[in-house]
């Protein structure tokens, strides 16, 4: 009897010392189970727990579940058993359920104990049952084990929360430096790496290269197959580039269909570095020979590539990127699948245009760099019959850039719709201001220039109606000036739109008349109310007889079509006199006034009225 007591105390001591030797649940149970297996002569130990929604052991189970799920067994390969079913009374105290099962070789005794109401431990023993005192000595140990499990589960919950936070931080950091769509490094990441490579190059005298890739005709994919396919194509391109470049360099996505390949350590010889890039270009070209899969579509794309080798003098990272960008534009101009190394002479004008384009984008965002100036129009008695609204851009980066310079760039860059809408709205707001301030009775119209892109847009009429409604100006005071070239082509829809404007009371003038090639028959079909004789015919008309003949023809035409006529660019009294004599009695030009800001224009109207 005494001998057994010592044995039991010794077992209790050894098992007790093995509880809670680790903080994490699994290692803690592992340590306890190994001692249990050896000391209690077991075949296996199994643990079942309530589980949370994400399948982890929990102190409270999923709502409505209340079921114990298998968590782990020792040995791990033992057959998974089901947990014993405890009654409500049994589950909240340490009680033991003994089950006996048999197979061909053995009787299996399963002793299950409740662990703090949230788990069950089952001790499996072969053939030999436990003596009852053993079960009693185990109960206080199981109670302690339950507390230890509770502490471990709480600890695990805390660890999971910490891990989730760390994961979230990692995700944020990743997102900060990577592109969401392709998961390639983004612009920020690229610029950091470029700065680093630049420093290495400047320190060691070794060359690096930045390859600016833009996919040829990518817009067509987006427009015809949709953005979802476009996105898949971009992902496929990212993967392909990554495969092609490998560890040689860094592939990043700048925006849209623009990718950058940055490679460093190309040696100290310019020719060698260029040779390396040429090799890479061959690899890239070969890599885009086969079509790429974008969802169900198999698409063939090619990149236009602009390359800048660096370092070059004191060139900054930003300048390197811009130079490669310019070279890429030159490559685009050469046709599909082209590549061009940056050449400062060839690229100067292109770079200037790219800069202006970017400045225009910025100006449209901030909105306060544009202003409308007004140049008055006069009748035969000198009375003010209207004004032309002319756009001015106060560019903080460069002085004196006129519409003739920036409007074509805006058109090419696809900014004309936005810019044109701004001009229309500003013109209407200013017209409202003029009305409020007081207009002379002779004032019949404010002319606003509308570009071909703007006029041909299918929403143009609706946009204009919206602006008129928003600003509350009288449509009859508004005149839209369209160039002759705008009216060529799209004849039916042009006529429809002009008719619609006319019905609304808005006048339409044909600007720069005589410079285009429109046939008289076509002109006769256009519901225009006014023709503007281009200033090239007006300049020095008093001394150049050829110009007089042209103007005479235009006057005759306007009379036959019963269209109003105005001559622009009238700078001298001699010019005005000749034009009047030929039959045109409305004028615009420096002879009367230069284009002036709204306030000055209104002041001039006031003076004339007084």
């Amino acid at each position: 009897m005494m001998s057994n007591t010592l044995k039991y105390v010794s077992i209790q001591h050894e098992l007790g010392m093995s509880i809670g030797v680790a903080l994490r649940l699994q290692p803690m149970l592992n340590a306890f189970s190994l001692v249990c297996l050896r000391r209690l002569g077991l075949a296996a130990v199994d643990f079942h727990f309530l589980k949370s929604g994400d399948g982890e052991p929990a102190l409270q189970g999923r709502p409505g579940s209340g079921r114990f799920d298998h968590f782990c067994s020792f040995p791990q390969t033992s057959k998974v058993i089901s947990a014993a079913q405890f009654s409500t009374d049994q589950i909240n105290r340490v009680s033991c359920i003994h089950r006996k099962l048999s197979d061909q070789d053995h009787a299996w005794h399963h002793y299950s104990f409740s662990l703090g109401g949230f788990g069950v431990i089952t001790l499996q023993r072969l053939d030999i049952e436990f003596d009852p005192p053993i079960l009693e000595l185990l109960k206080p140990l199981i109670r302690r084990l339950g507390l230890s499990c509770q502490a471990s589960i709480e600890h695990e919950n805390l660890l999971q929360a910490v891990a989730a936070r760390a994961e979230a931080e990692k995700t944020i950091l990743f997102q900060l430096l990577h592109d969401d769509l392709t998961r390639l490094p983004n612009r920020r990441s690229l610029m950091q790496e470029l700065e680093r490579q630049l420093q290495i190059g400047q320190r060691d005298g070794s060359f690096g290269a930045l390859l600016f890739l833009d996919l040829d005709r990518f817009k067509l994919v987006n427009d015809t197959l949709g953005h979802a396919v476009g996105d898949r194509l971009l992902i496929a391109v990212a993967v392909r580039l990554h495969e092609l470049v490998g560890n040689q360099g860094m592939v990043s996505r700048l925006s849209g269909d623009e990718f950058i390949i940055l490679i460093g350590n190309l040696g100290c010889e310019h020719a060698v570095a260029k040779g390396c890039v040429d090799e890479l270009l061959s690899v890239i070209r070969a890599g885009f020979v086969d079509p790429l899969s974008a969802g169900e579509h198999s698409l063939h794309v090619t990149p236009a590539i602009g390359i800048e080798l660096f370092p070059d003098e004191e060139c900054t990272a930003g300048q390197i990127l811009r130079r490669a960008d310019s070279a890429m534009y030159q490559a685009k101009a050469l046709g599909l699948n082209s590549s061009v190394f940056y050449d400062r002479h060839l690229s100067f004008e292109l770079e200037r245009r790219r800069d202006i384009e970017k400045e225009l984008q910025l100006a449209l965002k901030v909105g306060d760099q544009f202003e409308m100036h007004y140049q008055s129009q006069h009748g035969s008695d000198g009375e003010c019959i209207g004004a032309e609204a002319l756009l001015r851009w106060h560019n903080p980066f460069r002085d004196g850039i006129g519409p003739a310079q920036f409007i074509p760039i805006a058109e090419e860059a696809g900014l004309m719709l936005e810019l044109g809408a701004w001009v229309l709205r500003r013109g209407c707001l200013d017209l409202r201001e003029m009305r409020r301030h007081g207009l002379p009775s002779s004032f019949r119209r404010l002319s606003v220039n509308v570009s071909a892109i703007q006029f041909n847009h299918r929403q143009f009429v609706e946009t204009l109606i919206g602006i008129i409604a928003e600003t509350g100006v009288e449509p009859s005071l508004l005149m839209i000036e369209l160039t002759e070239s705008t009216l060529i082509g799209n004849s039916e829809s042009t006529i429809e739109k002009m008719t619609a404007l006319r019905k609304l009371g808005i006048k339409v003038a044909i600007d720069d008349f005589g410079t285009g090639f429109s046939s008289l028959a076509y002109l006769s079909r256009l519901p225009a109310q006014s023709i503007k004789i281009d200033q090239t015919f007006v300049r020095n008309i008093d001394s150049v007889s050829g110009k007089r003949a042209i103007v005479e023809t235009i006057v005759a035409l306007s009379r036959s079509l019963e269209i109003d006529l105005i001559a622009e660019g009238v700078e001298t009294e001699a010019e005005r006199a000749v034009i009047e004599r030929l039959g045109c009695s409305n004028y615009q030009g420096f002879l009367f006034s230069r284009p002036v800001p709204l306030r000055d224009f209104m002041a001039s109207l006031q003076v004339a009225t007084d």
Partner: protein
Amino acid sequence: MNSGQQAVYLESATIEALRGAIDTLRKTSARSLMIFACEGDNWAIRELETYLRSLDLPVFGGIFPSIIHGSTLHRNGTLVIGFPLTLEVAVISRLRDQPGIDRQLRRLGKTLADCRSVFVLVDGLSTNLESFIESLFGVLGARAAVMGGGAGYLDLLQRPCLLSNQGVIVDSALLVALPMRVDRGIGHGWQMLSGPFLVTRSNGNVLEELNYRPAIEIYQQEVEAHSTSRFSQTDFFSISKTYPLGIESIDGDFLVRDPIKQVGGALICVGELPENATVYLLKGEASALVAAAAQAATSALAMRETRLRGVSAAPKAAIIFDCISRALFLDEGFSDELRAIERALPPMDCVVGALTIGEIVSSRSGLIELMNKSILVGLS
């Protein structure tokens, strides 16, 4: 093991003799081979290795201090046993590398999945044996019956001792999956002398403290209190071979741990003594050890009868793994142990065995244990 295996005993340790024995066994449909060799024959390892590698039959076995054939102990000679089955033999190498053991065992999942018994032969002088056995249990559980022992040399110097198709290997284990159940009996006969003592500090097989005092102090004090032996006058192992330590199991039996060396205040044992365990000092008496051997044989028979539920099926073969330290302790009386086993068993075609350095067996509870100073009898 299966009915139908044949054993050939060779007195001569030559490749020619071995080849002749194997050719003979092939003619009786042997499809796998077990070879138990004696260290006393000083086999030419390189030649033996070349021959084993050239064999087209699965082969497993070891070099032991002595081998058993029938009721005779041989300090020389070789036993070649042919099995009429193609057995799968897996080699687990580099036992000192625990992560490597786990990786190798995991890969054996399929080999071990359906077997009902597993023979395990290990390099008995490998460190980390206990962890290997723990990992093996992790893979097998209580599903398969395990028995086996440690091969090696009596001078306790580790060198190649396991025989396999890879040659003669060291620091390894051989696992042989058997499709039939092997019934087992285990015994030792060592009896409690004093205790219990609490293991207050240990590291694997190094027992550093008992009852918060250097282990050697307690051990010496207790042994000298119960005997006329004096550590100051006698070699440590000469005394300790008679006084092992034992961890009492829950069912009242002892797991014997053999102190083989003293280093400072610590005792170096064969097998682990975990911290917080309680241990007893055991003593040996020849008659008790011999009786335990007979009991092991009787237990194996009883297990067989229980398993077969009374259906008469006399075993045809027996395998014995008997600890070398029992032979050293019993000395001339060891033949009594083998005779006692023979008397306890019915007549059989094939009784083979070896003196081992450590015994490995699935205990009655299902756990696989590394034992010392014990005897295993397996029947099929």
